[in-house]
């Protein structure tokens, strides 16, 4: 992983902004989907795909690649846009999101897009799959890093906590979980739907190396990922406080943008705002 100087940070900011524009355009064309989480996670996806992830977009199934497991599949527009912008497939294919026969299914499906590590959508399943990958890599002497991206809402699911226990038991220091702590889920604020409290304290008490950061700040993301590499025993979690809808002021922190696509006027407004950031 190369060092993160100011020049690189500026490059990443531009890429993240382009990914956000793609997300808005995709969702408008699709007519349905989930903008808030996708926009909020654009900086973390940009950091992973354009800085830290060991991968090769021209050889997607390279056996020694790091693995990136997206658990909350509904934010897949940010996944697809990151893949397209980093060269897995042409940007024009993003226009096919959610259409019949598209490789870009409404929620990710490996059968249609084989370069995905996992299919997802139903919540609470990604952590355990990433744990399985980390266990297999450890048993068979690999040197990969397994990244799992989770939402805060899916910590309501029991399966997530079953995985939290197993990862600590198996001492999976090759596992980095990033939790999108944006405080919203489909019915409203996470603390009202089902209070999660301090995820830091919860993960710490389960035996993890836990850090909390501003998930829309590249320097903080970088430091946190760097810190995980020093630790050789514990699984790592980064609680990334993100702003849902980040980049479009009118959508930020409003749970109503969890799962609806923008109309034409809203799309133009959003793209104007994002264009002005470049």
């Amino acid at each position: 992983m190369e060092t993160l100087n100011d020049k690189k940070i500026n490059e990443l900011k531009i890429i993240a902004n382009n990914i956000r524009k793609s997300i808005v355009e995709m969702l408008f064309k699709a007519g349905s989907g989930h903008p808030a989480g996708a926009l909020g996670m654009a900086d973390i996806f940009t950091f992973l795909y354009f800085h830290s992830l060991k991968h090769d977009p021209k050889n997607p199934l390279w056996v020694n690649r790091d693995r990136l497991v997206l658990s909350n599949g509904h934010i897949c527009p940010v996944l697809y846009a990151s893949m397209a912008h980093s060269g897995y497939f042409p940007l024009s294919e993003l226009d096919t999101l959610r259409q019949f026969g598209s490789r870009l299914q409404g929620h990710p499906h490996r059968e249609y897009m084989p370069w995905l590590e996992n299919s997802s959508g139903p919540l609470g399943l990604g952590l355990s799959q990433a744990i399985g990958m980390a266990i297999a890599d450890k048993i068979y002497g690999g040197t990969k890093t397994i990244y799992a991206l989770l939402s805060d809402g899916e910590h309501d699911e029991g399966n997530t906590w079953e995985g939290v226990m197993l990862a600590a038991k198996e001492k999976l220091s090759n596992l980095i979980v990033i939790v999108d702590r944006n405080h919203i889920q489909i019915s409203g604020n996470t603390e009202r739907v089902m209070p999660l409290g301090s995820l830091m304290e919860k993960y710490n008490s389960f035996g993890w190396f836990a850090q909390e950061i501003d998930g829309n700040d590249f320097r903080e993301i970088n430091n946190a990922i760097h810190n995980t590499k020093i630790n050789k025993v514990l699984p790592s979690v980064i609680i990334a406080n993100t702003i849902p809808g980040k980049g479009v002021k009118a959508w930020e922190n409003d749970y109503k943008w969890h799962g609806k696509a923008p109309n034409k006027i809203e799309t133009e407004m959003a793209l104007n705002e994002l264009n002005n950031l470049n």
Partner: protein
Amino acid sequence: MLNQPLKLNTKIFNEDVEKISTRVGFGDGLLKAGSDNENIVALSADLTESTKADLFAERFPERFIQVGVAEQNLASTASGIAAMGKIPFITSYSIFSPGRNWEQIRTTICYNNQPVKIISSHAGLSVGPDGGSHQALEDIAITRVIPNLVVISPCDSIEAKKATLACSKTIDPTYMRLARNDTPIITTEDTPFEIGKAQIFFIPEVGLANVGIIATGPILYKAIIAARELEKKGIKVKVMNLSTIKPLDIKSIVDLAKETKAIVTVEDHQISGGMGSAVAECLAQNYITPIEFVGVKDKFGQSGTPLELEKFYEIDTSNIIEKVEKVLTRKI
């Protein structure tokens, strides 16, 4: 008489026929598969000994993962292991896996199309004294409905071992249902086995059969005993071992229906959605045939000896004979 080109156990009609549970055959098979292929991994949800995964766990501790009482995690973790090119076997009881973790099996294993082998003991009423909470009578129904998933229900310990080894070599997600109790050995080491292939184990002394019994799992033994009783009454019977429920061996089932024009299905499972339902779907589409079903009739189980339960829930040899006699009266 036994269809001896298949080299079945000639002692099957003896009072002291050898009895071993299908889970024991699985345990031996897993150990062998693990010795043959270092990519085999086994996972347990705190039931290592009673699922017979303990032989593997002791021999290959570095390839054995204990996830605790957490069947949802069991299935989804195995999917991740399979995604790295390994062949994980997950072991539990049928009630919990695929019962508790059905959606994890559906989404992380089958929707992802990962070669996880879901091996579950304690299926059926034959669990006995543990009672209805632990008697899985719905597992065939909920697994055969999932795309990509192969469903196997071996008839004895020897076939369970062969099925374990066979599925360790395929890339298909697979569910195998096993029984707790010791049950008669029906086949021998020399009996051929192939996933997806039904076999006729019992045939008339001469001529064509006038009824076909299709059975799955250890209850096949009762079907064979019933066939011999019926033979004494002059009813010519063929008995099919349908150990692979999905993919269904349509050709063999249709051939049996064409020959006999009357079918009875036999399983230690709910009638609704089970193996008999699969046969009915097949024949309704391919060759209309009267069918009678021996299975559990929309009821939960309870504590008792297997014999008591089989009588009470009407899945005993006498019930098979009754159903054969009934279906003969319904011939078109």
